[in-house]
């Protein structure tokens, strides 16, 4: 699977909440995209992940 552009080892049974926890990401402060599905901060479901998933974990930053 790919997380934020980097490949990451997948293991069967892995779910989104466990992944975010492993990545030390505060699920209340990020938006997540798994494939074409987009989830809001604090409302990220604990979906099952698949080996080929492309995942983006983003937050709001300063910008013009």
């Amino acid at each position, binding site marked *: 699977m790919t997380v934020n552009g980097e490949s990451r080892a997948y293991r069967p049974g892995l779910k989104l909440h466990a992944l975010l926890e492993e990545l030390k990401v505060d699920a209340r*402060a990020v*938006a997540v995209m798994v494939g074409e599905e*987009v989830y809001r901060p604090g409302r990220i479901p604990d979906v099952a992940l698949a080996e080929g998933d492309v995942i983006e974990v*983003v937050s709001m930053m*300063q*910008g*013009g």
Partner: protein
Amino acid sequence: MQDALTIGGKDFSSRLMLGTGKYKDFGLMRDALEASGTQIVTVSIRRVELGAPGHTGLMDVLQKGSYQLLPNTAGCKTAEEAVRVAKLARAMTGTDWLKLEVIPDAKYLLPDPIGTLKAAEILVKEGFVVLPYMHADPVLARQLEAVGCATVMPLASPIGSGRGVLTRASIQIIIEEAGVPVVVDAGLGVPSDAASVMEIGAKAVLVNTAIAEAESPVQMAEGFKLGVEAGRIAYLAGRMAVRTTASPSSPAAGVVGLAQPEMPV
């Protein structure tokens, strides 16, 4: 609200939008935003650093100020990337508003007109309030308006350059023809730049670097606030006609002269 700026069905009393980039710290950014009187602020969407403790400082500051957030797609080089980031931006910020940027060129940060139009068309259909960053091209402005963009945002000069208004003649045509608010974005260096485009009928301006990189960002924010207000009032007042020769302000008759003007006094 008297003389409100209306975008996407919302009314604003301030015509100065601010970027939140390049400030030395959040405190300075917060103070500059306050001094500017802005009601619309841009933010970017970025991948989080994995494995590092995040911070929510920016969100805290902006939520307390109850600003209309305008997330951008800065960094996107294609329409496809911009559409993807737009969806993340909507999820992250909770707003449908989007400053659309499709910029393939890193040196001058000039937007791709074809990619911008393509992305705008998709995003409008998906319910976004699209404010597209664009070159000062009147034909493109018309096309972006036709696909349903909420504004058009022609650039004055390259992003962050502070070179002022290099595209004035084209901006003037866009203003003449646009049925949506024209927001002049990018390159403004000083308040008089902002005033000068407001005077010809721009509905708003967007400023970031000129304030963030000023010696005193808070003072410069206030300067831009006044510049935008002065320009807007002047536009509403209607400027005088330009003459090629002088026209005396004092009465031509009754001037006290000498009997022999050639004699020295």
